[in-house]
């Protein structure tokens, strides 16, 4: 078992978080260029707010939540979400070189389903399934209770499943109310 943060602090720590920040930014923005801009801005914002960072807090959650809040601010200001919706699926271009043709088709399908999810569902799936955060860390990052994270996650997964599997799961689900 490994507990986050055991590897200790070093100046590489933030550099090591970059792939996670960039991956999360891309899940939110669905645009590689916009994602890197967002990460850059988040790093600058974190620099300005360094004095508010409390070492007992996870560095990872702190950085991710700065990035998340910036994204929300931007969305409010610019309505960029609508513009991006028109450009769906650009993201999945060029990354289907893994595996064979069938796999490529499947991956493209999953990418399209993911990009069609509402932003808060993309956020939990990216943080937990892809970036490997715990429920607790994801809740801290998003500033919502763990229960909300879980119900969003369940809904997001249900939407990502194959239509038949989703139907079968629907019959299995116990509870699953979104607390937010």
């Amino acid at each position, binding site marked *: *078992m*490994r*507990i*986050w*943060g*055991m*590897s*200790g*602090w070093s*100046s*590489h720590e*933030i*550099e*090591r978080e*970059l*792939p996670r920040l*960039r*991956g999360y930014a*891309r*899940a939110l923005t669905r645009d590689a260029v916009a994602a890197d801009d967002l*990460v*850059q801005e988040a*790093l*600058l914002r*974190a*620099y300005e707010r*360094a*004095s508010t*960072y409390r*070492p*007992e807090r996870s*560095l990872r959650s702190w950085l991710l939540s700065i990035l998340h809040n910036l994204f929300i601010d931007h969305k409010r200001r610019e309505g960029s979400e609508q513009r991006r919706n028109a450009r769906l699926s650009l*993201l*999945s271009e*060029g*990354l289907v070189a893994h595996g064979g043709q069938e796999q490529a088709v*499947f*991956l493209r399908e*999953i990418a399209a389903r*993911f990009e069609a999810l509402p932003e808060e569902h993309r956020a939990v799936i*990216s943080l937990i*399934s*892809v*970036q*490997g955060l*715990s*429920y607790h860390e994801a809740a801290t990052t998003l500033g919502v209770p763990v229960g909300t994270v*879980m119900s969003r*996650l*369940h809904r997001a*997964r249900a939407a*990502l*499943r194959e239509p038949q*599997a989703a139907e*079968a*799961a629907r019959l*299995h689900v*116990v*509870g*699953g109310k979104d607390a937010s």
Partner: protein
Amino acid sequence: MHPEPVTEAEIQAYLDGELDLGRRLEVESHLAADAEAAHIFMEDLRLRTSLRLLATDLADAPPEMLSAAARLSARLGDGPARSFRKLWGGRMMQGLAAAALLMIVVLPGRDVQARPPAYVGDAVAAYRTGLLREAMASQIETPRFDAGEVQRSTRIRVPRLPAQWVVTDAQIFPSKEGPALQLMVRTPNAKKLSLFAVRAQSDAPVAPTAVRHEGASVAYWREGEMSYAITGPEAPEAIDTVAETFVDDAV
């Protein structure tokens, strides 16, 4: 005694590495007995792998991002938080407490984004070569392996292998860090694994971390001046579990 029934939410928590061992077992028993639930679980697993695969094509971080990251590190590393290292320890303790509270078991295999140290590439290459040697009639394996002799001549410390493991081949490989030892082993359930050891102070973590690398899973960790990797065909989680036994053993 009747165990708590397993819910869909719990199966997902299992997938996300949030359950303690006791509940993991309950979920596994449930999945083993319920084909439909197992099917959905596999589907979710497939989704997760797909999303991770889709997320792997990040280009290198642009230089301005790296310098912004370095500036932030420097800022966080001094100033009011001068005793940062000490505070980090406090944070770790807090993390431990939180983990106990929530029964969080983080699967290290999920830490897929961290860039593995360079020797991990060598470890995978050695593993492939080992499989190749085994398949070739003209390449004779060297199953006789003397840990003492290896340590004397290369200063590579070899961890104690589990008793049931059989060494099928032992080779010294050249690597950037100097000579590296590679052992091909067969485990009791006929799995072929490769153990790679090199005397190098890499930036591998002390606790094993597993990644998927070029079609094989590698768990890597460091112990003082030695860096280790275990490579095999299974899922990263499985390889990581194997690696944990070494680390636990060493303590």
